[in-house]
């Protein structure tokens, strides 16, 4: 991991992602607006009937706020990693692959780019927190920051693993609808996961995104309940998920160079 062929190229690719993003204002907009519409409409629709288990009076707008943050990060990360497919098609990637750059540096640059954008967009959405009755307990801010970064990183990782082998953006959208969106839906983002033995409960427990949602939810001051893992565990699993997607992506990039 020398400076010349690892950190500098990674930093350049990271920086490029952000410059590109800021130049394409419609991307900023689209990654924010869809989750916002979800939040407002679902919040308005479900709030009257929403009764989480264990009592308590939580409005659905409040409940759905952390899930919306994760959705924003998922969308931003997806838009960011879809550029891998464009880069491949338009030739930019070839130029990167014939440069003496370590595979890990290509992955790191992309992951940091996606993470920065995802965290930035999520932070932007936080200005709406007062309308949701969501507060930011000071002592939990470090945990929230960590949760944002880890969730952004792992969402970018998921997107990268899907995007790298693809030749068309259509294929990516198919995987997004069939795999990525369901991962988000059964993460406790949209509804509390059922407690006890049930298929959804088990799927939720196996779903790494569940831990990201739980980490953000608890960093916003929610008390841990039976339907979600504790904050420490949530952060640890999300960090593990980050490491796993990063390692898998590095392997994928190193391998792709050898074969096709």
């Amino acid at each position: 991991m020398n400076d010349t062929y690892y950190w500098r190229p990674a930093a350049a690719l990271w920086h490029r992602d952000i410059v590109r993003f800021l130049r394409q204002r419609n991307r900023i907009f689209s990654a924010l607006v869809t989750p916002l519409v979800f939040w407002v409409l679902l919040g308005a629709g479900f709030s009257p009937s929403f009764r989480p288990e264990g009592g308590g009076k939580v409005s659905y707008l409040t409940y759905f706020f952390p899930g919306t943050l994760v959705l924003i990060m998922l969308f931003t990360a997806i838009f960011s990693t879809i550029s891998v497919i464009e880069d491949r098609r338009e030739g930019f990637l070839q130029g990167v692959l014939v440069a003496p750059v370590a595979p890990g540096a290509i992955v790191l640059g992309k992951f940091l780019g996606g993470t920065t954008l995802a965290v930035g967009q999520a932070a932007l959405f936080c200005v709406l927190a007062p309308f949701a009755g969501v507060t930011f307990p000071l002592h939990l801010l470090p945990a929230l920051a960590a949760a944002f970064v880890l969730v952004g990183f792992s969402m970018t990782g998921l997107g990268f693993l899907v995007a790298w082998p693809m030749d068309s953006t259509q294929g990516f959208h198919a995987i997004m609808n069939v795999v990525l969106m369901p991962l988000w839906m059964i993460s406790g983002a949209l509804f509390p996961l059922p407690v006890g033995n049930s298929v959804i409960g088990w799927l939720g427990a196996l779903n790494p995104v569940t831990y990201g949602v739980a980490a953000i939810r608890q960093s916003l001051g929610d008390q841990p309940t039976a339907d979600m893992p504790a904050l420490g565990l949530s952060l640890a699993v999300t960090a593990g998920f980050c490491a796993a997607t990063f390692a898998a992506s590095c392997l994928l990039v190193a391998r792709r160079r050898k074969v096709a």
Partner: protein
Amino acid sequence: MDAVAASGIVKKFGDLTVLHGLDLAIPRGELFALLGPNGSGKTTFFRILTTLIAPDAGSAVVGGQDAVGDPAAVRAKIGVVFQSPSLDKKLTVRENLAYGGALYGMHGSPLAARIAELSGALRLEDKMDRLVETLSGGQQRRVEIAKCLLARPEILLLDEPSTGLDPAARMDLWSLVASLRATHGMTVIFTSHLMDESARADRVGIMSDGRLVRVDTPAALLAEAGPEILRVATVDAMRVSEFLKSQCGLAPHALEGEVRASASGAHAVCVRLTAALPDAVGSTTVSKPTLEDVFLFQTGKRLNE
């Protein structure tokens, strides 16, 4: 030491063998052309030399480094100009060059100085802050070349460099290549399906069906094709071909609407042919051989179908 030493290169895609044991040595400082039609395997070979893919068998040493075992070492020595530019069109010329340099570990004032130097050499000074997508094809190619030269590669590899360039931009490109070779002794390797372009090279490797059919200087290849080439435009290639073979002792190639043969004293053959088969002969042309004729005589196929 050679700039490129490839031996026994085999590449398969599934059941299809694209390269059948290629051997090639290119000395340092040479301008080398890989000439062949689409599908001849030249781009696959190019991708092996540039470390984008690994061969299934054989070895490729580029710039003294093993392209299979240590691709990163090769990448540090080569500059690659792709057919479709590897530029980010949403970024400015300057940004593209800065990021391009960073990929080679360059930074700070040495990188800025190098960018300034190349932007001057490639006449890009007034375009530095324009988005690449607003530049013409020729200008984009110049940016691409500037990006490839940033890290002072020993070997420059160009894939179909003239594609998409107008004649003026082509002349520009080749005069730049000539000056790079003159000032830095750079080895330049390019693929082409154009015979006039390949004729510029010190040596030409003719590729067909995954094999290097011949490697020699353009002059030697042209000399082999004979002093004169006879082309007959005809509606009956079979009859014309038969006549040239049996009556004139030539080895003609019958093509679609045309018969071509190497002949000394071609003008005399024209007269005999026209007299014997007046209804079959549309027109006759006698010319010096080109590399396209060489390709035809070597492979029995036309270069550009």
